C-alpha cells in the first residue's frame, strides 16, 4: 500500500463516484410519465401535443379524446419552447407516446419512428390539400395526417402606418425603412420574434431561393440570400426592432400591448389581434428581398403521427382515423374555434364560414397566393443549421458567406445520411 498515490486514487475516485451517483439518483427521481396507472382493463393511448397558446385548446383536445369510446386517450400537453427535443427524446424510450403531433420530417420516417398511414388517408386523399399530401409523402407512402395549416405573415396597425406616412412594405428595404419611421420613443417599428428564426424560411423564399431543390440538394446558398442576410443584419442593428420581448413571435402580445407597430406572427393569433385592436389590423406577406424574388408566406402547421415503435400502433391509427379523418365537426372546431387555422381538407375549408370574409379571408388569400409548404426532406438538424447562420451573421456580425459555408457542411452531412 504505497502510501500516497494508491490512497489518493481510491479516495478521490470514490468521492467522484459518490457525487456522480448522487446526481444519477436524483435524475432517476423524475419518472413521472403521466400515465396514471394505465388501467388493467380497457385499452389506453397516450398522445403528445405542444402547448397551443389559445384559450380552450387543451380542453378541446381532451374533449375530443374523451368522446372516443374504443380506448382511453391520455393527452400530454407539453409546455415550454422545445417540444421537438422532448418529443425526440421520449420517442426513444418506453414512455414514448402512441401518437403525437409534429411537422413532417423525413428522419422520422427513415429511422422507422412513424407509421405508414396511407391506408387510412387514401380513401379521402382527394379531399386534402394536395400540398399537404405531398409534404407527408415519402416513396408513395403517406406518414401523417395534417390537422391544421398555419400560414405565417406580418400583422400591422394601419392607423400607425398612416400616422407615420408609411405604405405597406413590398420589399425588404421598404420594410426596414418602415420600421425606422414607425419607431417612436415608446413603440418599436417591428417585431420578428426574439431570435428572428421565424423569418428565416420566408426570407430565403423571398430572395428567390429555396431550402432544398427537387433533387434534395442545397438551394439556400445564393447571392440573394446573402444579400437578404446583410439586410437583416442592418435591420437588427438599426434599433428599430423590438428585441427581448417577454413573449415570442407566436404570441400576439407585442403588437397588442403597443410595443411595436408591425409584428411577424401567424394566422392562429388573428382572433386575439381582432379582439384587442378591432379593425385596426392588417396583414402582408414577407416582402421580396431581391428583384428576382417574390413575397412569401410559410404555410406551417401540425400533423398527427403514429409512433411505429409503440405497443398500440393499430389502435393509435384507428384513433387518428376516427378523429382526424372521420370527425369533421371536431376538425372544424379545432381549426376555427380557438385560434384561426386553415383546414387542410377542402370540404371543411369550404364550410368554415369564419374564414370566408374580412381579415381571415385575406389570410387565406396570402396562404393560397404566396404559401410555401413544409419540405419533408428539410429536417430539424438542417433547420438548426440555418438558425445558427442567423445567429452568427444577423445577431452577431459574422460574414454571411462563411456562416452559410458552415451550414452547408452540416446540411450535407445530414443529406448524405438521409439520401445517400
Amino acid at each position, binding site marked *: 500500500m504505497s502510501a500516497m498515490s494508491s490512497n489518493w486514487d481510491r479516495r478521490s475516485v470514490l468521492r467522484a463516484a459518490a457525487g456522480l451517483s448522487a446526481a444519477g439518483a436524483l435524475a432517476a427521481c423524475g419518472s413521472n410519465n403521466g400515465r396514471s396507472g394505465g388501467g388493467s382493463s380497457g385499452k389506453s393511448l397516450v398522445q403528445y401535443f405542444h402547448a397551443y397558446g389559445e384559450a380552450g385548446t387543451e380542453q378541446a383536445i381532451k374533449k375530443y379524446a374523451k368522446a372516443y369510446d374504443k380506448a382511453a386517450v391520455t393527452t400530454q400537453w407539453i409546455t415550454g419552447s422545445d417540444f421537438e427535443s422532448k418529443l*425526440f427524446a421520449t420517442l426513444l424510450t418506453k414512455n414514448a407516446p402512441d401518437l403525437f403531433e409534429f411537422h413532417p420530417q423525413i*428522419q422520422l420516417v427513415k429511422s422507422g419512428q412513424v407509421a405508414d398511414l396511407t391506408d387510412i388517408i387514401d380513401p379521402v386523399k382527394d379531399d386534402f390539400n394536395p400540398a399537404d399530401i405531398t409534404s407527408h409523402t415519402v416513396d408513395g407512402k403517406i406518414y401523417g395526417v395534417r390537422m391544421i395549416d398555419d400560414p405565417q405573415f406580418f400583422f400591422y396597425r394601419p392607423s400607425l402606418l398612416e400616422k407615420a406616412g408609411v405604405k405597406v412594405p413590398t420589399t425588404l428595404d421598404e420594410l426596414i425603412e418602415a420600421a425606422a419611421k414607425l419607431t417612436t420613443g415608446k413603440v418599436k417599428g417591428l417585431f420578428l420574434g426574439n431570435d428572428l428564426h421565424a423569418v428565416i424560411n420566408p426570407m430565403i423564399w423571398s430572395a428567390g431561393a429555396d431550402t432544398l431543390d427537387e433533387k434534395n440538394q442545397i438551394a439556400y446558398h445564393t447571392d440573394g440570400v446573402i444579400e437578404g442576410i446583410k439586410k437583416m443584419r442592418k435591420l437588427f442593428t438599426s434599433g428599430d426592432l423590438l428585441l427581448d420581448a417577454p413573449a415570442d413571435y407566436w404570441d400576439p402580445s407585442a403588437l397588442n400591448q403597443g410595443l411595436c407597430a408591425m409584428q411577424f406572427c401567424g394566422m392562429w393569433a388573428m382572433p386575439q389581434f381582432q379582439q384587442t385592436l378591432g379593425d385596426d389590423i392588417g396583414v402582408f406577406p414577407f416582402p421580396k428581398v431581391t428583384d428576382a424574388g417574390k413575397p412569401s408566406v410559410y404555410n406551417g402547421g401540425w400533423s398527427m403521427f403514429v409512433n411505429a415503435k409503440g405497443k398500440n400502433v393499430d389502435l393509435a391509427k384507428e384513433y387518428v382515423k376516427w378523429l382526424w379523418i372521420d370527425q369533421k365537426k371536431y376538425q372544424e372546431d379545432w381549426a376555427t374555434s380557438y385560434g384561426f387555422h386553415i383546414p387542410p381538407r377542402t370540404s371543411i375549408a369550404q364550410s368554415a364560414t369564419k374564414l370566408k370574409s374580412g381579415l381571415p379571408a385575406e389570410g387565406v388569400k396570402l396562404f393560397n397566393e404566396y404559401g410555401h409548404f413544409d419540405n419533408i426532406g428539410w429536417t430539424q438538424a438542417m433547420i438548426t443549421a440555418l438558425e445558427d447562420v442567423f445567429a452568427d451573421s444577423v445577431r452577431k456580425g459574422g460574414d454571411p458567406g462563411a456562416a452559410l459555408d458552415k451550414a452547408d457542411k452540416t446540411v450535407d452531412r445530414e443529406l448524405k*445520411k438521409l439520401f445517400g
Partner: protein
Amino acid sequence: MSTTTTRDLARPAPAKASKARPRRGLRGSSTFNFWLFTSPFLIGLVIFVYVPIGWSIWLSFFEARFTVTPDKFVGFDNYRFMLDNNDFVGSLGTFTVFAAFIVPTTWALSLGLAMLVNRLRFLRAFFRSVFFLPTACSYVAASLIWKMSLFNGVRFGLANTVLGWFGVENIAWLANPDPPWYWLVILTARLWLQSGFYMILFLAALQNIPQELYEAAAIDGAKPGWQTFRHITLPQLRATSTAVILLLLVAAYQAFDEFFNLLSKTTWGRPPLVELYYTALGQNQDYGAGSAGAVMLTLLIVVVTLFQGRIMGFGRGDESK
C-alpha cells in the same frame, strides 16, 4: 488509514468512528456487513453511473442517431466531427471565461456577506436566512424571472426602467450579443442564487476562528480592519476557501440551466454541457457525436482533477495534515 477494502476492515479499522456497541455487533462477519451496507450504494452506482458511462463510450464509436442501440460502427468519426466543428472546442473557452468570472466573484461576495452578517449584533438570524433563501430557488425559475421581468428588452423591464431614469436607451440584454450584456444577466443570476450558500460555509468558518487569536494580534499591535483580516482571518479561512473554490469550480462545470434558459438558439455562450445537450439530446439526437464529446469532456475533467490533486494535495488524506 483507508477503510475501503475488506482486508482493512478485518482489522478493527473503524476505530475512528467506533462506539463500543455497534462495533461488537459487526465483528462477527464484517465482510457480510460491508457488502450489506455498501451494496445498495454500489448497485445504484453501477446502474446509474457506470453502465451509462460504458454505454456512452460504446455509443461514441457508432452512428447513433435517433437510437441508443445503434449497429453502424464508425470508428473515430464522431470524435473527428466533434473536434472539427468549432462549437465543442469553443464551448470549453466559454466555460473558462465563465469560471474565471464567477468563481472569484462568488468567493468574494459570499465572504463579504459572511463578514457583514458575522458583525451583526441584531437580526443576525434574519439576515442569514434572507441571504440564504435564494439557494432554495431553482435555476430555471430564477432564469425565467431574470429573463422576463428583470432583463427583458422592453421599456417596462426592471433594468431598462432604471436605465430609463438616466436617459439610457432600452437595451436588448439577451438577443444582441454585441456588446455581450448576456454575461451580466447570467452572472448576476448565478451570484444571487449561490452566494448565500457559500456565505453560510464562510460564516461557520468565521465563527470557528478562536477569539484569542484576535486578542493576541491586538496585543501585538495589529490594527483592526485590513491588517487583521489579511493576517488572521484570511489564513484561518484557508481550508474553507479552498473547499469553496473547488465547489464553485464544480458548480461552474455543471452550469446548464441558466445558459439553456436565458440563451436559447444562440451560437455563443454555450458551456460544454449545453453544447452536448444540443448535440445529443436536443433536436439533433446524435447520441454518437454527443457521447464522443462527453467522453472527451470526461477525460479532460479527469486530467484536470489529477493535476489539481497533485498541486493542491486535495484528497491526499489525513496524513498530509
